[in-house]
């Protein structure tokens, strides 16, 4: 049980600045997910935390100890690797027992702890097998088991589910969450999959180009992204963006974009007033685009042409042509739209996002 603190953490590879001044405080027993596109520095950050990568500058604290100069084995962590990294010449039992043997844990104690972990993960029947005799999902469980038996202060996960097929991934995701609830140990989890990040993380850290973009609870990231990158990265299908010019018309603030114009309600207008006459970026999530009925005020509606209809069962995705932009709308399965239809869509003003056109920061 321990909190983890990253203080001004930097990593340089020759000329490449891979991790830039990362500051993060992970609370005791918290499940924190680092997420971002490949090359964003999330794995490097995790490896510095594990001690597998040297720290160029800054500090890593586990518990209240600065661990910068401690070897991985002395940091009291356990790590689950993307490719499982099971010892191919050892049985499942020996794979799980290896860390305990190295730490000279009593033999009976080892047996008890391996058995206990195997029971939790449902791999009791495979203890005598070699890793290559197991399926991908089973190997992943063994890798988890190897981490669990150690009773470490912190669990580190490096994209542990990315080698599994889609169905198994969803199942293991749920099991990981249950496991964390049961073990109640601090966990740091790296993934490029925003769905994994949203479902697993107590808090999510979005990274890009070595820089932390936003740290927050999943819904906080979804509802109030701090910039256009986070807004576009979190949520699937991704948020629609359209440049728009703000204009003052008869005391009301209007946003004019190609294909649609909005008359903004007073509260939003107050916030955006300084941007009058300038270009901003309007962001709207596909699920916030609804087919309009008569009751919507005309200033928040626009017409769009349906180009592609994707029926997913629980929802229908419509690819729309709006002026010069394409947008995606996620609508009720009952909507009977066909290709080429012209539909009227309504926007909920409180669900709109606005970003500065140059800095891309949320306004």
């Amino acid at each position: 049980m321990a909190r983890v603190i990253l203080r001004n953490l930097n990593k340089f590879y020759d000329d490449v600045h891979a991790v830039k001044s990362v500051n993060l405080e992970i609370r005791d027993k918290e499940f924190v997910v680092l997420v971002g596109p490949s090359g964003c520095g999330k794995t490097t950050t995790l490896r510095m935390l594990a001690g597998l990568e040297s720290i160029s500058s800054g500090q890593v604290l586990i518990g209240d100890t600065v661990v910068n100069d401690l070897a991985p084995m002395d940091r009291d962590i356990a790590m689950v690797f993307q490719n499982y990294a099971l010892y191919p010449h050892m049985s499942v039992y020996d794979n799980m027992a290896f860390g305990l043997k190295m730490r000279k844990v009593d033999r009976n104690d080892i047996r008890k702890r391996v058995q206990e972990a195997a029971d939790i993960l449902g791999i009791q029947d495979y203890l005598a097998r070699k890793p290559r005799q197991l399926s991908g999902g089973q190997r992943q469980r063994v890798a988890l088991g190897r981490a669990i038996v150690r009773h470490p202060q912190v669990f580190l996960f490096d994209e542990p589910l990315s080698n599994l097929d889609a169905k198994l991934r969803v199942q293991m995701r749920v099991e990981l969450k249950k496991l964390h609830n049961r073990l109640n140990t601090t966990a740091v989890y790296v993934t490029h999959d925003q769905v994994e990040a949203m479902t697993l993380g107590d808090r999510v850290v979005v990274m890009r180009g070595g820089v932390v973009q936003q740290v927050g609870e999943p819904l906080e990231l979804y509802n109030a992204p701090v910039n256009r990158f986070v807004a576009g990265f979190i949520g699937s299908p991704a948020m629609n963006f359209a440049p728009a010019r703000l204009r003052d018309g008869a005391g009301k603030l209007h946003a004019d974009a190609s294909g649609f114009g909005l008359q903004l309600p007073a509260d939003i207008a107050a916030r955006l007033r300084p941007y009058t006459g300038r270009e901003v970026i309007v962001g709207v999530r596909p699920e916030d685009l609804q087919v309009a009925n008569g009751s919507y005020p005309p200033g928040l509606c626009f017409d769009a042409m349906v180009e592609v209809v994707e029926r997913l069962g629980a929802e229908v995705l419509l690819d729309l042509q709006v002026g010069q932009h394409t947008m995606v709308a996620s609508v009720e399965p009952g909507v009977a739209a066909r290709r080429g239809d012209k539909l009227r869509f309504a926007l909920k003003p409180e669900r709109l996002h606005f970003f500065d056109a140059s800095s891309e920061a949320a306004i």
Partner: protein
Amino acid sequence: MAISDVLSHRAFAQAPRRGAATRLLEDERWLAAVLLLPTVILLGLFIAYPFVEGVWLSVTDATVGVPGHFVGLANFTALLHDSIFLVAVRNTFVYTAVATVLKLALGLWLALLLNRHFRGKAFTRAFVLLPFIIPTVLSTFAWKWMFDPTFSVINWTLFQLGIIHGRINWLGDPSLALISVIIVNVWRGVPFYAISLLAGLQTINPELQEAAAIDGARPWQRFWHVTWPLLLPVTMVVVLFSVIQTFADFQLVYVLTGGGPANATQLFATYAYQIGVGTGLLSQGAAVSLAMFPFLLIIVVVQLLYIRRVEVH
């Protein structure tokens, strides 16, 4: 245009008149036989025939120019009372055992070093192969010069460093000669071990090292519990090849000492050559070289069984 035209033209032209030979070759059994033929001829001519001829010679009393008659195992029983042969057997075992252990140890050490990341890695790896690439006779002559009692650069260095005060007669001293020959064999053989084991090391997922480091294994334990067991199958194959070659080594000893002084470096192969070709007693020479066969066979069978066991598990 031209090529495709010509090709299609030919294909059409040949299609109707497919000869009997073509039809025969479309039968996989015939095709297999035809494809195997060159290999069978080569192996038969250069390996099977000399081997059978050697076995035959060893049970006759043939000498150069005399066809000889069948004498049963007389040549072999004579060997048992041949003190030089017994010395050669002992030397061959010492030579093979000591050289193999040293080559394995040094080769593994070198492979582990070369498996790290450092500047000029590719160049160093190529450079390490040099002793292996240079024709043995050439490099052995260089060593002979270095071991020369008067001009030895080794002696000169040791003398200048104040370690020795007289001359060391590397190849002339019976107690040193075998050691000297082993040194050269190790020098020539280490690159083969280093590069082969390096190839083996590179097949081992580096994540395993990281997992073991996090699991609490110290560098030596990581080697012993993870690297070594995974490298073992490759190591066994490398040792197998090396033992066969070392056991039957000839040119190195022939160039350096010719088996001397006083047979102190006499091996199976050099003794067989000395009797069979040098003295002209073809049948006895054949018997000496054939005497290697059971030893090699046992070594090969044991190692192959072991490799199979490792691979099955």
